[in-house]
């Protein structure tokens, strides 16, 4: 019970601090839209072919946008040595981690929520009919992205080249999770029911569970030297 209260405290703290300045969210959002636009130059969005794999492109956009939010996640604790005060408090490192991961999830979902309609218009893709299954897939995929990313944000918080190391480590580790999310999204955007791609859904859930467990286990080791 206390664990969840601590999680909630950190979650609301991070969201409030972020929403006051909107530094990370604004950067992430404009970056996402720019990439959506750039990709439309690389692949002709009016072609049937492009529409077929555009669900996969969407996840590349999300992965790029995520790094801008994730890089700030633990780095925002650095300026006044706030991380020390958090570690010194009775809240376990795993609760702090979970609060931060949930806050990142929320922020990233907000960016994605704006991207989806823009994407639908740019690429002439209809996704409203698949809203609920799509929401499930997006939440699961984004959770994988944030839980691994928040962990690596903690891992790289005190090192040189933090901004470069995070995406380098995150993208390689995320390949299976991104692959599953892309498969499911393409499948759903083609108008197929979720039930025919059930293996991928199960796989994505498995990915999330494994990395959430690993992160919660090792975050204390990473933060307390």
């Amino acid at each position, binding site marked *: 019970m206390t664990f969840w209260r601590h999680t909630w405290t950190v979650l609301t703290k991070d969201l409030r601090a972020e929403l006051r300045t909107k530094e990370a969210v604004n950067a992430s959002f404009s970056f996402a839209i720019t990439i959506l636009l750039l990709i439309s130059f690389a692949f002709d969005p009016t072609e049937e072919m492009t529409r077929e794999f555009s669900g996969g492109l969407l996840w590349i956009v999300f992965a790029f946008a995520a790094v801008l939010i994730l890089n700030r996640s633990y780095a925002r604790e650095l300026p006044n040595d706030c991380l020390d005060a958090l570690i010194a408090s009775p809240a376990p490192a795993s609760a702090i981690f979970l609060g931060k991961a949930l806050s990142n999830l929320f922020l990233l979902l907000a960016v994605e929520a704006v991207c989806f309609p823009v994407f639908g218009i740019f690429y002439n893709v209809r996704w409203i009919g698949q809203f609920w299954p799509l929401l499930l897939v997006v939440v699961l995929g984004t959770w994988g992205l944030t839980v691994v990313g928040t962990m690596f944000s903690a891992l790289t918080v005190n*090192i040189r080249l933090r901004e470069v190391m995070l995406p380098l480590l995150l993208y*390689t580790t995320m390949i299976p999770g991104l*692959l599953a999310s892309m498969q499911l999204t393409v499948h759903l955007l083609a108008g197929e029911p979720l039930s025919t791609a059930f*293996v991928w859904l199960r796989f994505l859930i498995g990915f999330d569970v494994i990395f959430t467990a690993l992160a919660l286990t*090792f975050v204390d080791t*990473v933060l307390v*030297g």
Partner: protein
Amino acid sequence: MRKSIIILIALLGVGWVVWNLHTVLLQLPDDADQGPVYRIMFFHIPAWFSAGIAVFIALGSSIGYLITKNLKYDAVALATTEAAVAFLTIGLVTGSIWGRISWGIWWTWDARLTSALVCWLLYAGYLVLRTAIEEPSQRARISAVLQIFAFADIPIVWYSIEWFRTQHPGPVLRGSGEMDGAMKAAVYANWPALMLVAAAFVLLRLRQEEVKREIDSLRRIVHAG
């Protein structure tokens, strides 16, 4: 360990590989379907096995470091990961050259190739991360956690890409017996030989890490005084 012993092990390994090469090139007949090019397999397959073993040892010593905080385990993890990356590179390059003849292309996004490439990226990322951290204890701790994450990712990567696409020939050593007994024996004979070479690499690297630790403490003395 004394340098001369390491050199002896290296020479023994290299000599053994050369001896095996003689058997492979002169005594074994050409493969019925593939022609002479299949002889690359005598390097390709044992290289993967050796890399696999190195990766296991690296994981074990990373966990060992987290439990004991003894920097020797960290040095073992580093040395074996480097050897693993070297052998993974051999596996990728030889496989690619073999594919050029057998499949007619240098690279194909088939399951095994892709998984192998992702593994290579994961461990290369580990080596890059190490270069970004100065303080030895912090470096050991953080890279040990990353090692665990990388290892956990391998089976997940494997399954995801296996489902995604497959073109690589199935396991040639077991099952339907695609490979002739004498050839199989030659593959197995080359494995310990390459392992000896790998062992020499690891021992040399370990020695270097020891010297580096001595350099570090000497530096402290010079700076302190």
